[in-house]
């Protein structure tokens, strides 16, 4: 049954995005807010907003009972969790099901299975998805050499009881594998009282690629192309692009097929993303994990496909079939998104909440801004520091970079420091322009210099 009134259990730009998508489908909206978000843009745009409780997320956005109670009492028959907060906690769809509310997302059992790294890895393996080559336990230095030769160097020797980098050694050849076995095993005994080791291929320069998926819950799964999210700092994505221009077509096809096969093997319902590590030197990709929700960076996939993923999420949750077939999904041009955070890059990315005094975003063809900010808006100190996402769409990657540079140059923000100047520096760097980046490039190459210039 199509959803008539949708409860939005999130805040910030994604709450606003969901309200907009629902309104385009003529669906009423109720936005849950904390005391700190009473006057948020989403609250003002929605048909109604409801104060859950205090600003602290644990007593508002992170309390599934409070949220489902509010959804039920406000007469909602659907609930969108957005991303973050409770979006991948199976208790939320379970409570929704108990109260006759359609959850905009996957089945709770699927969320649970994908949330467990080992189970997800086993499911991926069973669906024929490539995994990082690795070993079972290695018992001796000779074993380590044999396994290293088989897996291919460089390899990582890891303590199976490990964590935090202790008992972890990189080996570039057979001799280093033997020496590394003794070192890692001794470290592991000292740190964990257990010297058991296993080995995994080490990818020094990997790209992060991911496939946007949408399933109907009945076994049919579509993909909406891939994204390249290799500009990261401490595993947090800063810039996302679509498509992955560094990937040749034959690999891209395999990547899409792998992602679809994995999702179809669990009758995946609604939006999800399969994440992979792309070893550019070897031209291979390996499964990382599946994110069972809409992602921050979904707009770049929308830009290159012309398809509204959030509207489709809401339709599917209301029982509709997929509104397109795979051959209708056409990729056109190149899109780049940068996450604008209220952080001071010159001060180790210190979150900088406060009041925005000027907010004049760029406008023009191919420019999209997903943001809940405006002049006079307050960024409360209780939540993450993202204030918006600037997305550009161009005919190719070079055109998109040029448009993004213009867009950032014409973006006026005052009142709080943002990451916009950093984004401007990233996209002007020859490594970015020539697409020679990897997941540690920002921290290893750009940021050390960027810090010097700022100081």
């Amino acid at each position, binding site marked *: 049954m199509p959803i008539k*009134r949708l409860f939005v259990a999130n805040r910030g730009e994604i709450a606003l995005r969901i309200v907009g998508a629902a309104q385009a489908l003529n669906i009423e909206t109720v936005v849950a807010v*904390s*005391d700190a978000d009473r006057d948020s843009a989403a609250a003002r745009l929605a048909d109604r907003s*409801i*104060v*859950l*409780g*205090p*600003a*602290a997320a*644990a*007593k*508002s956005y*992170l*309390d599934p*009972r*409070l949220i*489902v*109670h*509010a*959804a*039920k*009492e*406000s*007469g*909602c*028959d659907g609930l969108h969790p957005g991303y973050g907060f409770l979006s991948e906690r199976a208790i939320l769809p379970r*409570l929704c099901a*108990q*109260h*006759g*509310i359609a959850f905009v997302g996957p089945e709770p059992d699927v969320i649970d299975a994908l949330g467990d790294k080992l189970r997800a890895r086993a499911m991926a393996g069973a669906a024929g998805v490539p995994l990082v080559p690795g070993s079972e336990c290695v018992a001796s230095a000779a074993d380590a050499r044999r396994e290293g030769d088989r897996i291919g160097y460089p390899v990582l020797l890891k303590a199976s009881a490990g964590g935090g980098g202790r008992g972890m050694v990189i080996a570039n050849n057979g001799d280093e594998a033997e020496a590394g076995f003794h070192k890692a095993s001794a470290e592991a005994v000292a740190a964990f009282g257990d010297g058991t080791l296993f080995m995994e291929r080490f990818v020094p320069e990997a790209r992060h690629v991911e496939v946007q998926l949408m399933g109907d819950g009945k076994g049919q799964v579509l993909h909406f192309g891939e994204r390249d999210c290799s500009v990261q700092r401490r595993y947090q994505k800063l810039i996302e692009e679509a498509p992955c221009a560094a990937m040749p077509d034959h690999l891209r096809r395999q990547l899409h097929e792998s992602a679809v096969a994995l999702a179809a093997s669990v009758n995946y319902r609604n939006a999800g993303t399969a994440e992979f590590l792309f070893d550019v030197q070897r031209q291979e990709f390996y499964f990382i994990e599946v994110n069972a929700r809409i992602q921050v960076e979904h707009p770049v996939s929308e830009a290159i496909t012309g398809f509204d993923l959030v509207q489709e999420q809401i339709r599917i949750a209301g029982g509709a079939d997929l509104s397109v077939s795979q051959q209708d999904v056409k990729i056109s041009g190149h899109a780049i998104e940068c996450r604008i955070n209220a952080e001071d890059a010159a001060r180790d990315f210190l979150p900088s909440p406060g009041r925005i005094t000027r907010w004049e975003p760029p406008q023009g063809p191919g420019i999209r801004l997903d943001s809940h900010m405006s002049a006079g808006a307050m960024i409360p*100190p*209780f939540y993450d520091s993202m204030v918006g996402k600037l997305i550009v769409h161009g005919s190719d990657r070079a055109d998109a970079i040029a448009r993004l540079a213009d867009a950032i140059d014409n973006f006026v923000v005052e009142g709080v420091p943002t990451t916009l100047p950093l984004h401007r520096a990233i996209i002007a760097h020859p490594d970015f322009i020539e697409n020679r980046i990897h997941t540690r490039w920002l921290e290893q190459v750009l940021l050390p210099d960027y810090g010097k210039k700022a100081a």
Partner: protein
Amino acid sequence: MTGHDFPDALKQLLDEFSRSGIRELHIRKSDFELYLSSDASAARPRAAMTVVAPVSASPTQPAATPKPIAAPIAPISSLPDDAVIINAPNLGTFYRAPKPGAANYVEVGSKVQAGDELCLIEVMKLFTAVRAGTSGTVHAVLVEDGAMVEGGQPLFALVRD
């Protein structure tokens, strides 16, 4: 928990608490008690209690007719200047009695002591008592029994003795 005579100080304290990384803060001083915790599952020393669900709650009610958010019965502006407003700590359903058919915790004119229970706020069958932060007389009940209240919504006005 909050009297309207010190909202700024309380808000400042909450802000400081949220920023500080302190996990728990418990202040008790004559007729005033405040317990802050950054852990939602933490057992509060006095303010929270759980009781059996009232029979009126139907478990699988289809989402259809929304309960309107309770409009204040008495306009807050008409209250005496020295009235102390008791607000809802979070969203939930407002119950004036401990269980269906039982007498209300308080009526207009009831004398209450600091710490006395005034009502229950129910969230998914979990009932939390709201207690008086001060001794005094109930001047007004601002919400209908059984209505949904939002976080921070005024529930009672007390006048100190």
